[in-house]
């Protein structure tokens, strides 16, 4: 039998180092991969700009350096932010309920929430469109019928019809489409956060004088703060790049419901890859800036506590 040799594999400290390197390599590797994608995009555009014919360059300029692009950027960021706020408004109590309360048919409820993530985004958008159309048809059926004798046209039920008018091919439709998907993601992360939070803390708060809501607000929510931030980051980042359901429900009307991702898609479908990539880069830079700001804010608030993003 050979004598034991002191190889790195046998040395626990060295082995730990070894694993540490592998783990860090995985993290760096993937982020480097993303960086590579962005750099290659940038290089592609750079090369294009250097070689583009004057006409082609003019088209690029007229489609990128215009007010619409700014409008789309603002609409993308704004709608994602509004959506994230609305999603959290629902996800915080919903995640809490799924984590804490006994609910009849919880498995089904939980799975229905997940279905919003599982369904292809395009199908989510289509389903919303179907729902709103059904509402409108119901509104027509329940409204006043037309009176041909007096020449008075029929009037749909104003309440049912208003949903349709409010959302379809309009800005609120952007938020509705984003909300349907983002909320499911936010619920997931809020539930995980409340699952990880010690419910005894709420029990103690109750005995100390809190109402049920007070215990949720003052004991559960502060503990789930990291989940709140994770939920916000996940919902926001997913939303800001969401394209298919927005396009089908809100349309891609320039200057009105076109957001950055829908415009980028339009450019790709027309073969203008350079414009699409330029818009994508604009989007990536802005989104990363927002995310970094959010994470720095979270880090400062954490002040040694357990928040990590």
């Amino acid at each position: 039998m050979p004598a034991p040799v002191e190889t790195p594999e046998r040395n626990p400290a060295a082995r730990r180092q070894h694993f540490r390197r592998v783990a860090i390599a995985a993290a760096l590797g993937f982020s480097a991969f993303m960086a590579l994608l962005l750099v290659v995009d940038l290089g592609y555009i750079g090369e294009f700009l250097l070689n583009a014919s004057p006409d082609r360059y003019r088209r690029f300029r007229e489609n990128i350096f215009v007010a619409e692009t700014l409008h789309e950027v603002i609409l993308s960021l704004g709608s994602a932010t509004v959506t994230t706020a609305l999603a959290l408004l629902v996800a915080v109590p919903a995640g809490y309920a799924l984590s804490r309360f006994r609910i009849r048919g919880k498995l089904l409820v939980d799975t229905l929430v997940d279905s919003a993530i599982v369904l292809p985004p395009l199908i989510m958008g289509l389903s919303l469109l179907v729902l709103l159309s059904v509402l409108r048809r119901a509104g027509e059926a329940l409204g006043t019928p037309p009176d041909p004798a007096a020449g008075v046209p029929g009037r749909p039920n104003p309440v049912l019809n208003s949903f349709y008018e409010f959302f379809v091919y309009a800005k609120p439709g952007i938020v509705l489409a984003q909300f349907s998907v983002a909320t499911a993601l936010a619920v997931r992360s809020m539930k995980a956060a409340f699952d990880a939070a010690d419910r005894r803390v709420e029990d103690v708060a109750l005995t100390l004088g809190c109402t049920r809501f007070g215990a949720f607000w003052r004991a559960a929510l502060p503990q789930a703060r990291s989940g709140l931030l994770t939920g916000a980051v996940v919902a926001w980042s997913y939303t800001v790049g969401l394209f298919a359901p927005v396009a089908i429900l809100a349309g891609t009307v320039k200057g009105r419901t076109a957001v950055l991702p829908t415009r980028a898609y339009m450019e790709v479908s027309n073969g203008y890859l350079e414009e699409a990539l330029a818009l994508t880069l604009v989007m990536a830079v802005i989104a990363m800036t927002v995310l970094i700001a959010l994470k720095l804010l979270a880090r400062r608030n954490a002040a040694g506590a357990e928040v990590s993003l």
Partner: protein
Amino acid sequence: MIRLESLRYEVAAFSLEVSLEIARGEYFVLMGPPGAGKSVMVECLAGLRAPSAGRISVAGRDVTDAEPRDRGVGYVPQDYALFTTRSVRDNIAFGPQIRGLPSGEADRRVREAAVLLGIEHLLERPRVQGLSGGERQRVALARALAVRPHVLILDEPVSALDESTRESVCAELRRLQRELGLTTIHISHNLEEAFSVADRGAVMSGGRIRQVGPLGELLRRPAGEFVARFMRCENIFLGACRGAGRMPATTLAEASGAQFLLPGERRGQVQFAIRPENLIVELPGDRRERTGAAAVPARLARAVDRGAYVRLELDGPARLVAHLSPRAFADLGAAEGAELVAVIPPEAVHVIPG
């Protein structure tokens, strides 16, 4: 002070069904194996679980349907459940503030509780992270006491602490309870811990209270086999009465092929328990005349020195466990494998009521 009347609570296959009374100022210990329902019972008392039937009253007031905050119950859970996002001061001030006490009064309460527990020096800590187990427990206690509860519930208060500090913490809890005259329920599955703090207690299992009483009574007069075993009475036999013993008011009984003398006049099947510390162990040659006691031949299978006593495992017609003082064991001078005699006077035998 506390009355639980036919309290029922069900969850999945588990059901709790208890009645219990605890007097004002009593230090009551609730014992039982894990899963016995101890925590569930105090959670019902604290209003954290809604019982399906029965009544709960605290300080003469029916609180069965009261909110947890209106019960006058202070609660310190096992892991202390401190508010991890608040400072030590804010943890303690949480109750007074939430109850809307004027800030001067709230400050006074915080200081008072901190002084009582000797943690004034911790008040300015911005976070509870980094406190030791003992410090965390004190903060949790101060937090519960700051709202001046009628009843204090301590769920396994020392099980998270290391062995060496448990005893001093238990003494501290006892002192605190005496000082405040606070009715206290302390959950424990550890006998030493229970005896070091409490006057009275109960043993639970399977959602039922098996026996309530002064701890000495639980120890020496267990009401059933379960309590006897929980109280570490290892010599439990099921025997058949064979008629009156030679002494008056004794009964001769046979169990596991050995003869025992039981107190009182009995017949039929009996179950009885003998505490290991009540066995007398002798060498066969030494044997003095003891007409009033049973003598069971026994071979020393194993002797384990536990410091305070030596635990002897005896083989023979009946398997017996005896606790001898180290000195008595040394005097006996027996090695493992030695033939001995276990002498059991009738007053050492507790007949389990059945």
